[in-house]
């Protein structure tokens, strides 16, 4: 508790408070803006890690994360075209509400639900992270190796619709991670001295998130303007409150644990929350036509999952979402390695960050309720400027790593890969996680086998490692069974006439 109070002292200094406000505003803005999500924004802001204090930068990034989760809901409700996968479910009822003239109530329940879920989630994070770190600190290299394998496997095989494409993305990422120098030899550098230290992950992240997305949008730019539903000041009636508070709490209960799991993310809990609310509602006739429960629950779930994501990130150093992965990159830029020792070694930083999450949440509520009409205006920004701006800041971010045109060329090449990934439906997250975790998995394996003098049995010598392998086996069986079941429903493709598709 004292640590948390000290944390508030860190977070409430004028500088850090300013960074929190900037983070929350930026996060909400990019959540609202089409084409940009929190992961891309943090990636574009990575250059600030070269000069801004670590605590300030991380406080800002956390604000962007929470703000982005909230901002996405505004777009879903007012536009019916969710940008972030975590707000797909919100659009189902939220946009219907807006069309019925209840946009203000939809935005209000989303904002207040996000605040409540985020606050509860952060409390759980404050309680859990140090305890988990205490457990994790006793683990050796074999357990780390197993946990990282599980993270790679889970992110790839459990999320996303196509496992094959997940693995393609993962192994492309691992291949990028191979580039560099190992035991004094250049690996996959093609004789290029500038690749000897590997490709800076800032460039990979910016290229895949920002350039790939901008190019993909450029190829499919919507030519007709979108219908935006005008909105006034968000507010809720007494009956709206009565119908919202239980979904908020249930959404939080779904969101947090899923966020904390290696393959949780926000998609599954928002969807579960929606189904639950539809089943439990006293107004089943409204579902599909704009039921407030269908906005309250999923919105709480996605903010709670954002808080949950920070548990494995801080306690183990494992990123489970794209935004968490980029925040991890930021920490590594500072020479910080999140994990069990991280909390003990940097108490000021960590507790300042945790305290700032409470502040970010409160700021979100205070800022977003009155500013909703302003955010809605952001949706009208001319698209050429929006995407030209994204390309501009992406290039600036990559160039500022080394001031080298070579980095910009790399940005372009990997950006084209990002474009191809969107064309072929390859998920982005496994690639980024592969680039980050690939080299660390190699380190942990080397360390484990060096201690055991090459005895492979050491890999399953720790109980945690054994448990993790069992979980992986169960996941594997589960996905195979689910795949079989889905395959059985589909008609046999062999007997159907062929049709060529040009691309």
């Amino acid at each position, binding site marked *: 508790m004292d640590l948390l109070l000290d944390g508030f002292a860190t977070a409430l200094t004028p500088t850090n408070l300013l960074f929190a406000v900037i983070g929350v505003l930026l996060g909400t803005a990019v959540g609202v803006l089409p084409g940009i999500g929190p992961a891309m924004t943090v990636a574009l802001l990575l*250059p600030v890690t070269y000069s801004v204090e670590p605590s300030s930068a991380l406080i800002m990034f956390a604000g962007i994360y929470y703000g982005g989760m909230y901002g996405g809901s505004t777009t879903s409700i007012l536009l019916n075209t969710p940008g972030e996968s975590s707000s797909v479910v919100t659009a189902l009822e939220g946009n219907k509400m807006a069309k019925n003239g209840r946009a203000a109530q939809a935005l209000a329940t989303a904002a207040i639900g996000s605040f409540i879920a985020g606050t509860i989630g952060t409390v759980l994070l404050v309680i859990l992270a140090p305890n988990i770190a205490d457990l994790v600190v006793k683990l050796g290299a074999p357990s780390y190796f197993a946990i990282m394998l599980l993270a790679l496997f889970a992110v790839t095989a459990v999320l996303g619709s196509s496992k094959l494409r997940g693995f393609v993305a993962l192994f492309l990422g691992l291949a990028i991670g191979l580039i560099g120098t*190992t035991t004094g030899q250049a690996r996959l550098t093609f004789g290029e001295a500038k690749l000897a230290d590997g490709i800076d992950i800032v460039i990979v992240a910016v290229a895949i998130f920002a350039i790939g*997305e901008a190019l993909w949008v450029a*190829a499919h730019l919507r030519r007709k303007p979108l219908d935006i539903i005008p909105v006034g000041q968000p507010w809720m009636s007494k009956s709206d409150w009565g119908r919202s508070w239980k979904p908020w709490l249930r959404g939080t209960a779904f969101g947090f644990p899923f966020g904390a799991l290696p393959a949780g993310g926000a998609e599954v809990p928002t969807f579960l929350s929606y189904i639950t609310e539809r089943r439990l509602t006293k107004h089943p006739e409204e579902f599909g036509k704009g039921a407030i429960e269908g906005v309250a629950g999923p919105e709480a779930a996605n903010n709670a999952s954002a808080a949950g994501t920070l548990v494995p990130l801080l306690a183990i150093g494992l990123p489970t979402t794209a935004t968490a992965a980029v925040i991890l990159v930021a920490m590594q830029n500072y020479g910080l390695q999140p994990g069990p020792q991280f909390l003990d070694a940097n108490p000021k930083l960590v507790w300042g960050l945790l305290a700032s999450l409470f502040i970010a949440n409160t700021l979100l509520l205070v800022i977003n309720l009155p500013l909703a009409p302003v955010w809605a205006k952001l949706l009208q920004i001319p698209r*050429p400027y929006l995407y030209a701006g994204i390309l501009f800041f992406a290039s600036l971010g990559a160039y500022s790593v080394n001031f080298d045109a070579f980095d*910009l060329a790399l940005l372009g090449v990997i950006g084209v890969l990002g474009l191809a990934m969107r064309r*072929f439906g390859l998920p982005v997250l496994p690639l980024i996680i592969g680039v980050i975790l690939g080299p660390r998995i190699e380190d942990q394996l080397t360390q484990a086998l060096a201690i055991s003098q090459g005895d492979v049995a050491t890999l399953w010598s720790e109980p945690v490692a054994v448990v993790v392998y069992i979980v992986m086996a169960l996941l594997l069986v589960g996905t195979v069974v689910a795949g079989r079941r889905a395959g059985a429903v589909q008609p046999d493709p062999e007997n159907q006439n062929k049709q060529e598709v040009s691309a």
Partner: protein
Amino acid sequence: MTIATEKTLAGPEPARSKVVDTAQYGLAAFLLVVGGVVLNDAAGLEKGFADQPVQPYAFGFVIGTVLVLLSVLLAVATWRGDVTEAEDGEDIDLTHGSDWATVAKLGVVFVIVVATISWLGWAIVGAFLFVGTARVLGSRTLILDIAIGTALSLLTWYGFYVGLGIPIPAGVLDGVL
């Protein structure tokens, strides 16, 4: 549901007829090439120290082999009628074909940026990047574009230099800025 355009979306309803997304063979070929390059590179690496438990080529062999395997799996899946679920978004209209000409023009702008940045510096090239890409993407207000682009590149240059203490090379404008 007949799909004849180049953008095919499987969607929740299964396509009636078998569709072969030929471009996916290209992706499979790309994976094969990457896998081959990784394997070839791994084969060229020397052993590390005598007691090195994980040799530098070990991960290369595993990753390269899996990439080759995935390439074969993807080719087979494509042949069996597996289609891409292309990514959707607020500003993305998948009902029309892909506009690769726009992407190519953006590529040209970007190549010019890469080629000239060391010489001209960020302030000029950044403004060119903004104006060029905005124009390619359909902006028709050249004067306004140039004004915004110049303001952005100068603001970021000074912002990085003064605010963040990151001295971005000024290029030909060295001494002017």
